[in-house]
């Protein structure tokens, strides 16, 4: 946990279903996806931070036409999720019907999950809490 966070490890943590955010050593701000510089104080020293996995739904779309790599997975949700810790991430949204997006309400509570894609990758995902 003490090593300097890198993008490679950030992505591997998601593959391993062990999502961790960056945390600014100077001011404690939680940052994900990674940034080289803290959006709050401009600090450049980061460490890993566990997150509660609680968030809420800011906005979303349902992808119907995708590049080849993802086409088999369509239709699928991609959402903007605000974590309890204040940062926002892009993630897949699970547990809701992609054919009925008009039923999905914004601002609902979500919890962290993961999705094993047909593409072979594991995506950061959330589902209604």
């Amino acid at each position, binding site marked *: 946990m003490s090593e300097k966070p890198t993008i490679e490890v950030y992505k591997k943590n998601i593959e391993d279903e062990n999502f961790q955010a960056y945390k600014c050593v100077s001011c404690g701000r939680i940052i994900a996806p*990674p940034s080289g510089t803290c959006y709050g104080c401009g600090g450049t020293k980061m460490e890993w931070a566990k997150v509660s996995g609680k968030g809420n739904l800011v906005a979303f779309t349902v992808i119907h036409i995708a590049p080849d790599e993802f086409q088999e997975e369509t239709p699928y949700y991609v959402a903007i999720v605000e974590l309890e810790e204040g940062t926002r991430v892009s993630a897949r949204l699970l547990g809701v019907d992609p054919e009925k997006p008009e039923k999905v309400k914004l601002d609902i509570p979500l919890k962290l999950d993961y999705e094993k894609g047909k593409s072979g990758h594991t995506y950061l995902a959330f589902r209604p809490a």
Partner: protein
Amino acid sequence: MPLKNTNVVSAYQTKFGRLDGITLREIFAEAVDGATNNAGIPKKDIQAVFVGTFIPEMLVHQGHTAPLLVDYAGLRGVPATRHEAACASGATALRSAVMAIESGIYDTVLVASAEKMTSVTTNKATEALAAAADDEFESSMGLTFPGVFGIAAVAHMAKYGTTEEDMARAAVKAHKNASTNPLAQFQKEITLEKAMTPRYIAWPLKLFDCSPISDGGAALVLTSNEKAKQYTDLPVKIIGTGQASASMNLCDRNDLTAFEASIAASREAYKMAKLGPKDMDVAVVHDCFTIAEIIASEDIGLFKPGEGAKALRDGVTALDGDMPVNPMGGLKAVGHPVGATGVKQAVVIYRELIGDAGANQVANHDTGIMHNFGGTGATAVVTIFRRSDV
């Protein structure tokens, strides 16, 4: 202070669409000839070229395009640099050209652009376009460009009550304006019903909410006050320019109902021009998707946040409305050869301001604003033009 020394003295757009059998350099050369020789401006007067093109590396397997393109277009030896900012490549090339003239380094320069997108499959072109978003954190989980604007649409709908029908109206208007523009990719009007056809690309965006994949080019000649009257009696001045960046990732933005780089760039341009939105007679905005036109019309201050859709519904932004937006049909119906779009937008403003827009002429045409943004809105450039006799 408003810029004083930059004059647009010629402008040319090639046909946009699927230009079978014509390569990138041939498209570029047609645009250059149109803005130089065929406009009475000898190529030997061009002192530098600012080239706009997005991603020929992936589309036609060609890098280092600026010298290659200007050589083919008969400008061998002239300094040429390519400007890349995804869909805003054209406007960043234009802005650099403006700065070059205002600095006094050059008198007469060419801004020229082209993109060849149909030589690869649609999937390959989509992949190339996706390179304008953050590959590590958004594209890699399957977020596409229509998806980015689908998210913006959902946020705008939730906050302001904008509807799918409102967005469809932007498509209907674009096709109507393009129906009398012979350079447009689509010259057929569509009904609201057709625009609402539920072929979802990225919900809530449907097929008719999206701009097409296109080939095309455009070029402009800019020159100093001293030289301008040699070329035309009616130059158009560039009096304000602004540019800003935003995060690539949508998730790193606080407000998804607006594009902060567009707001910042327009403020800078208005401040420089010492004008405000009320002084604009015509606007050309970056409508890569229908929702993008609605949001851009708010971001550059033509309408209050949340009122862009109402303006569209009420016909305010129609060709004969009080604040015409995209009078020749926008990216949506004219086409979107990515790197050429920002230069083509300037061609439209130039033609409107000098009264050369034919069936697409707007009634008042002293001053115009152009908004061009790149990718997810991470680069935005706003330029303000005014006819020199105003």
